[in-house]
């Protein structure tokens, strides 16, 4: 029997669709603009007042980007930082969340309270800088991985998820002779894959996008991640850096189209990562362990 829908319901649906379509267009317009600008020649960018899609496509910007090996090398640095950093994040977060998810752990509540405290209060930029430099972590990648190794928010997320896993499963595993580590790796983690994938994505994107800690702690320009160079290129080619009184000595301003090309290049790895993680979102949801 066909479900009759009222006129009001239909018009609401229509309105909804149009509204969502507009929002989607608004979201995708900047992306089209950036990709389009990266494929345009510099002249067209300078001349056009409104610009979306280039009239004459040119790979000039991309060619310019690869004339020096700054972008490829910093991209490798970024990938390295993100992969190792996210692994450290995941390991530490899971190892901290699991015990805290058990009610019988002594002092668990206190530790959790302290961790939540850090969500509200933090030392600030200067004290953090002092701590990192006194630990002699400057100019190493550890200064990027350790200070924010565990995000309190993600920790609480995972902890809550662990608490939702039925006790019976763990007890069943223990009865079968599984050690504590075994329970963690063979039972709990496979069941938590969707939430783990989520926080892995949060952490990974955080690492990929960060530029300020790199500027603060890393002195060797060859170790800077791509975001540092991207920011530098964008600021240089748009003239935003000049201070009021002095120099306008700009020997090699990157052409405008180059900033867009670097933006596209810097975004591609993350865009590629998403579909792969989507597999884990689905996988975790399908594994149901408890019947009845």
């Amino acid at each position, binding site marked *: 029997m066909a479900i009759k829908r009222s006129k009001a319901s239909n018009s609401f649906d229509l309105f909804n669709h149009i509204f969502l379509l507009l929002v989607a267009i608004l979201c995708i317009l900047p992306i089209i603009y950036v990709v389009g600008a990266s494929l345009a020649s510099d002249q067209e960018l300078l001349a056009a007042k409104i610009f979306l899609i280039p009239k004459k496509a040119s790979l000039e910007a991309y060619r310019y980007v690869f004339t020096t090996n700054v972008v490829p090398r910093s991209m490798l640095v970024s990938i390295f930082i993100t992969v190792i950093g996210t692994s450290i994040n995941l390991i530490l977060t899971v190892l901290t969340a699991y015990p805290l998810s058990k009610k019988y752990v002594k002092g668990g509540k206190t530790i959790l309270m302290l961790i939540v405290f850090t969500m509200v209060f933090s030392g600030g930029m200067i004290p953090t800088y002092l701590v990192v430099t006194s630990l002699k972590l400057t100019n190493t990648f550890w200064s990027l991985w350790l200070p924010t190794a565990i995000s309190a928010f993600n920790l609480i997320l995972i902890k809550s998820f662990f608490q939702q896993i039925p006790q019976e499963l763990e007890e069943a595993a223990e009865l079968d002779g599984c050690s504590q580590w075994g329970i963690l790796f063979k039972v709990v983690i496979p069941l938590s894959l969707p939430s783990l994938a989520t926080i892995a994505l949060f952490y990974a994107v955080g690492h990929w996008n960060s*530029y300020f800690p790199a500027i603060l702690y890393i002195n060797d320009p060859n170790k800077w991640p791509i975001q540092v160079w991207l920011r530098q290129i964008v600021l240089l080619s748009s003239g935003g850096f000049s201070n009021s*009184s*002095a120099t306008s000595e700009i020997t090699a301003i990157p052409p405008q189209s180059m900033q867009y090309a670097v933006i596209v290049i810097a975004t591609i790895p993350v865009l590629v990562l998403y579909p792969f993680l989507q597999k884990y979102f689905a996988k975790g949801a399908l594994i149901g362990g408890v019947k009845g």
Partner: protein
Amino acid sequence: MMSKKIKKYISVTVFSITILSLLAGCSSSKKTDGSLATGVPTTTKISAMSILMSAQPPRIEGNTILNKIKETTNVDLDVSFVPSGSYKEKFNVTLASNSLPMATVVDAGMLRTTSVLSAISAGVFWEVGPLLDSYPNLKKFYSDQLVLDNCKIDGKLYGLPRPRVLGRSGLIIRQDWLDNLGLKVPTTIEEVYNVAKAFTLNDPDKDGKANTVGIEYADISVGSAGWNGIDTLTVAAGGFNQWGLEDGKIVPSFATKEYVSTLGWLKKMYKEKIMNQDFALVTGTKRADAFDQGKVGMAFATLDDAGSNTNETESGARPNLMSAVPTAKITIAPALSGPSGQKVPATPGHNGMVMFSKTAVKTEADLKKILSFYDKMATTEMIDLFTYGVEGVNYKVENGVKKSIADSKLADDSYALTMLILRPAQVETAEDKDITKQVNAAFTSNKKFLVVNPIEALNSETKNQVGGQLDKIVMDARIKYVMGQIDDAEYNKLVENWRTQGGDKVIDELTASYNESIKK
């Protein structure tokens, strides 16, 4: 037999100790020793922090310039570069955590900010002024006393100023348009108006279309006024360069009749559409872009915006313009003249200083070592090192003239260091392109026509606090006046507004500061 529990505790402890020692081992030990090495020819190490202005990292290994410096001066420069976009933040954090290296670049935009000023009063930086006399090369290097004076804070010099050209602002013009219309380069503001009119109405690019704009004007805030042309025109009319001294009092330029007469000319040009109608929104970069598109006849800018040696064009002229309009020719106007002859507004003459922190440079003896390094770098030999490079690698001598070797990577090796090493404001070589020669000649002749801004080294608390808002009042008044939205009476009312909102206080404080400075 140990209980399971104790075994567990031990294994956990051993595990954590292993991790911690791995961490300690992995950290690179870059021990920058604070004290300078003394004794028989051992290398002195100087740590520095400098601004990176380019989009690629400088070469450190195999850098011919750095090696030559080490060879000649026995100094090992350990520079940590920070991208220009984030230099301010990094500087503030390093300053606040007392980890400044021996030499730090502090550019003009940061020099008079509260963080640096309070650091100076807290004694973070060495006072260099009185020591300069014992360094003959540095004394010769700073031939313009004005440059030193403009860097003083409370009458004292806390670092080595980085000199820049004083007579730098001017008018760049399309010479080919002048030729097409049979016009001469303008020398007075009235001639600027006439040429702009001809450029707009008489089809100077001979394409049959009325698509040209006489002059492209960008209204940037009062702070960077030197580059938008207002001060260039005002001083030519006999007025002040942003601020002036009248009857022992510091007076702002925008309240004077010369300034208002300049605004009158701009108003006329705007009304007759011989100036771009969107000037209130145009920034310096947009103005440069508009000029490059080839439809603009003139623009007020820094003279070296016309072109330089680093451009790949034959004459050195702006490359974007040349590729848009291959027949274009750029020229620069001489200093404009008015009732008191030719005048040019003087820039501050510096882009900040290199400052030396007391945390890293512990004793005056150490400071003297660094100063003698800079003294050595101020000799003609070392200045030429940065201009020409190393003989045989970057240049060869033909008939007594230095000729550069193509693709020798001189810029790659030297450019990044030019922020830290003192460079003379103007450098001339035999291989200068036409535009460079013209610009350099203008820089030199402009030295005779400078109108100085007297408040460069003066301090006013109110100005630091509400200066930005006060500047906005001036900018709004100016824009409205030029667009014809307000008349003289209303403009004066807005000037009064500026006075009551703190302007009068600023005048008083600046005058007091000025009186202090002439006492010394």
